[in-house]
């Protein structure tokens, strides 16, 4: 967050948003809404890795990845590996990302989200069988849009605070 507070309130906020993300994915999505559903949990994890890397990182990403695997009835490890790679890429670009405005941030997030999804595809391909169609790349777009909206919201709430930290 904008204020580099290391107080307990921040933990509550982190857990709150991540739980909210998991809850959102439990809604009975179906049809087009399901195909386009952004990966709320991934966006949440990456967001907190960007702003609180000391607290949220590989471990959280791995655990939530296992949860995502359960949800999709996929092989355990498929999303977990992909999320961990996403976190790594984000840490790699972290200092850069912090300086960008929401739109450019989202544009930079796009390749990261794409890599994550392609990793899911690759691991699934190697471990199980060929997937059915490339509709699985749709959530990359919606997740990017979601990131833009979140970054914009945070920017509106906290002014230019994010740039001070960079």
């Amino acid at each position: 967050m904008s204020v580099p507070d290391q107080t307990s309130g921040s933990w509550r906020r982190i857990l709150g948003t991540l739980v909210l993300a998991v809850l959102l994915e439990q809604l009975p999505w179906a049809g087009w809404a399901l195909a386009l559903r952004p990966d709320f949990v991934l966006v949440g994890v990456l967001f907190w890795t960007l702003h609180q890397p000391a607290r949220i990182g590989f471990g959280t990403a791995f655990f939530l990845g296992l949860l995502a695997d359960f949800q999709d009835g996929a092989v355990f490890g498929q999303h977990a590996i992909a999320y961990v790679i996403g976190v790594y890429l984000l840490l790699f670009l972290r200092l850069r990302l912090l300086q960008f405005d929401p739109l450019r941030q989202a544009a930079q997030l796009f390749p990261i989200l794409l890599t994550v999804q392609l990793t899911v595809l690759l691991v699934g391909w190697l471990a199980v069988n060929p997937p059915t169609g490339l509709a699985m790349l749709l959530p990359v777009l919606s997740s990017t849009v979601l990131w833009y909206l979140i970054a914009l919201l945070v920017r509106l709430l906290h002014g230019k605070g994010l740039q001070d930290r960079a």
Partner: protein
Amino acid sequence: MATQGQLMFARGLGPTARLLIWLLVGVSCVVLDVRYHALEGLRSGFSVLLQPVRQVMRAPSDVATELGHFFTRHRLLQKERDALLVKRAQWLVSANAAHELARENSELRALLQLQTRPGQKLVHAALLYQGHDWFAQRITLDQGASAGLRSGLPVVDAAGLVGQVSRVYPGSSEVTLISNAEQLTPVFVERTGQRGLAAGSGHGRLELRYMPSQTDIRPGDRLLTSGIDRVYPAGIPVARVSRVSRSQSSPYLRVECLPLSGLDRSRAVLVLIAEPQGATR
């Protein structure tokens, strides 16, 4: 404690090392799950955790549907009721005929000393959750081991076969749809009686495999379960043939079919449980 911006130096391991460690853990997870099926306990744990959450999260859309039904116009309901009454009358007639046939059938079977077909129990279940179906076309139902479900049972809706129970948790279960690429369904063509094997081809479709190119089959033919696998009872509608094409390179026909049941649309389904005597058939 690491100060801001100095993470890389203040901690024991750099991000790359940590990435490698977690990748190792991830790959071992995949191997454990695919090769040894060792992580079913973790799956059950997640299901127990998420089951109540999903029940709750389903509530808003349930309430919306309820409200929608509440405001359905009176006339519409009357019309529906009239149509249903007509249908019921028709079905009563055919049900009587079916009773008669069943009686006759059992007598004939007794005469021929054939074993009787197993009785069947139905469990109502509702769609609880549907995940992305990129790899595995699966849905989650809100009934599980506590309702007597077990792995391998057939799941049907009003229109036809939906799939097969593939994983059972205490209060929920996972159903593999017949359109799953790894799911095979033994069927026969209703018009000709020709037996075959319907395999899922993803995208909510099926294909009828290994049909020699001179087979009499055309678009519009219905496929029913043949019952020779002793998993599905015979005669459940599965799919309708949508396209038949010949290829030069293969001795077999390419038969595409569309499932009759609403695979991802139906919200209420039935699980067929064969009674114990069925096991000794």
